[in-house]
């Protein structure tokens, strides 16, 4: 059974008199342990697709299944709890809570589950991302790369089965990009399923499977060995 399955997903945005079709009939399957890149020109619908896959956005029609469970059939409350457990999401613009320190930001998903993550596990996570000496800083005191790594740590704190990342390296220089990709590869080797939206051929090159999106449709797919 694939860990993620999309069937005939359509997404339309209605704004005033106009309807924008962001995704038109997308179907795909992701197997457990895959590391997949989604690429395509700006406005193609990559972010929309990723957010639908992660359950952040409801499709206009179609079905999303994570681990065999239909996201669309869940109540808002259940889907929130489900996502907290199974899905980690790294936002394009980091989206750290500005009033919390890095440590607290990382802990939020666990706190939402009523669990206070242990100091050791937080430190181990931070060390694996190289931000262990930045934990008591506020987002405004961190560089873009550091903020991104805090965001990744936050996505990982509940040990989710799938990690989604929307242009995680879009705001980083090539050196930091390499570091972040190294983290993703390591996580993937440890068995985690990862989906990355990216513009960067170097990032896509690090992924085994690459999906190309164009005008809201899957325009091609490459699988390297």
């Amino acid at each position: 059974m694939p860990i993620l399955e999309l069937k005939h997903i359509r997404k339309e945005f209605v704004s005033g008199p106009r309807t924008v079709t962001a995704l038109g009939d997308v179907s795909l399957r992701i197997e457990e342990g895959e590391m997949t890149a989604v690429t395509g020109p700006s406005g193609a619908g990559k972010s929309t697709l990723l957010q639908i896959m992660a359950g952040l956005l409801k499709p206009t029609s179609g079905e999303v299944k994570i681990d065999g469970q239909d996201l669309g059939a869940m109540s808002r409350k259940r889907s929130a709890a489900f996502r907290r457990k199974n899905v980690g999401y790294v936002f394009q613009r980091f989206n750290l809570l500005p009033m919390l320190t890095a440590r607290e930001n990382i802990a939020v998903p666990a706190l939402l589950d009523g669990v206070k993550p242990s100091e050791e596990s937080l430190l181990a996570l931070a060390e694996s991302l190289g931000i262990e000496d930045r934990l008591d800083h506020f987002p405004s005191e961190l560089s873009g790369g550091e903020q991104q790594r805090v965001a990744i740590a936050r996505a990982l704190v509940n040990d989710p089965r799938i990690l989604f990342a929307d242009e995680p390296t879009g705001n980083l220089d090539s050196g930091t990009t390499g570091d972040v990709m190294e983290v993703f590869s390591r996580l993937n080797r440890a068995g985690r399923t990862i989906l990355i939206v990216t513009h960067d051929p170097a990032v896509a090159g690090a992924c085994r499977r690459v999906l190309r999106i164009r005008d809201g449709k899957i325009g091609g797919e490459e699988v390297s060995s």
Partner: protein
Amino acid sequence: MFEKLMLGRGIRYYRRSYVNILCVFAAAMAMFSFMNVFAASLLNYTEAVELPYITRDWTCGFRIVNAVPGQEELFRGIPGVRAEFENGSICFYLTDPENAAGPWEAVEKIWYEKFRNPYLAEFGVDDESFPALYSYVGRDGRDTIYDYDAHRNEIQTNVLLFQSALSVLALPAMIAICGEYIAERTPDIRTLCGIGIGEGQLGRLFFFEAGLLYLVSAAVGIPLGAGIAALFFSGARGIGPGRSLAEYPVFRMDAGSLGLTLLFGWLAVVLTYAVMMKKVLSIDAAYTCMETVPNRRAERHRDLYRKKRTSGQFDRFFAEVLRKRGTSLLLARDVLESVSLAVGVFSLNAVNYLLDEDARMTGWNRDSVMISLANNSLFVMLGVFAVFFSLAAVWIFTKRHAESMAEAVGILSALGAEEGEIYACFRRLTVRSQAVSLAAGFALGYAVTLGVFEAAGYRIPVSLPYLLAHVPLAGVYCLAAWIGAKTAYGKICKNIEAGEDGEPIPAGEEE
């Protein structure tokens, strides 16, 4: 754990917004507390005016005015004096007018024991200079005789009515300021939704916040409102020749007034919270945006703008363009302005109607107007609160309206419009909406006034003072609009971020 963290940090991080919210909330609490304490004190005052007092009298030897039938029995058996109950007074007839000192002492002794001292004890007054005029004995009796219960109900009903009417003005201000705050926090909320916060958790977070705001605003607002009410009752107030209420402890803040204040405040906070939550829950986790929508019509729009600009119809045309966006905010502001103006017109006539006949503004008898205004200080205070809340709400809506224009202004400026030209558009827009809402407000106010007071035989007085009273009424809103235009719109015009070339012009402004 999570709530505590978010609240503790959020308050520090968003302290400026919290201060704004607290100002409006505390003002609402002050208003509720003022109303209730004022009512409680007013009851005391009304009773004080009709409390018994002892006085020398030329018809009989002396008399206790405002007594209760039966109280004359207390004075039976004093040698040299005959006590009779006549016209609400106990009259003391001296059997030997030449020898008044003995009987007077005996009567005064009983007056002290049965009338004055119990009153002092009741109100905890120990000042020896307290005028030997008032008594507390027989209040229950008087309550029935003078129909105090009915009176009490009337005052309390009125206060409750006014409170509800004013809440109508306070609520938009509270809701608007919270809307501001939610707009500011939307990115955070969105992030939390993305991380997977549940609806209940989100609700609890804001509920704690509402509770905290309620407590702090009550702690600040209730003493404030009660203090203002105390001011009204602290001055000496003549209630007849030679008598004063200076030492009468009229001011009263009892459990009832406190309870009603807390209740009204809580209702207002809960209502605000409900509206806020509706907004919060409608925020979803997804970050989608219009920014990359390809717009093929952009060039055509651009041509249109350029043509209008060169043909000199700039501000007329663009005021129209600007009006089309942010319509709901402008509408909210106009409706609010109309309603509060209507309340103002109604209150003006209500005061005028309730003033003593000769103090109505039909004539211009300054002294009696001042006295009547003092006696109707509740209305004066109501006016002050009403103006405060309407202005706060009008200001917030103006600011939000201006902010919602930022993008359009950016586009206009990218097309070459200058600061002055864009400001002229706003001025045009403001003047027009101002004229419409003032006219609507006056029309509504007079419709309600006529509907309510016509039946009571009140005629709208056409006199200069009365007409002049409309000037500050309308002027306050014009001033608010002017300041709003100068600051909010002015700021947007100054901070124009010229849109990049090639940025699409959002749809909706074609002719």
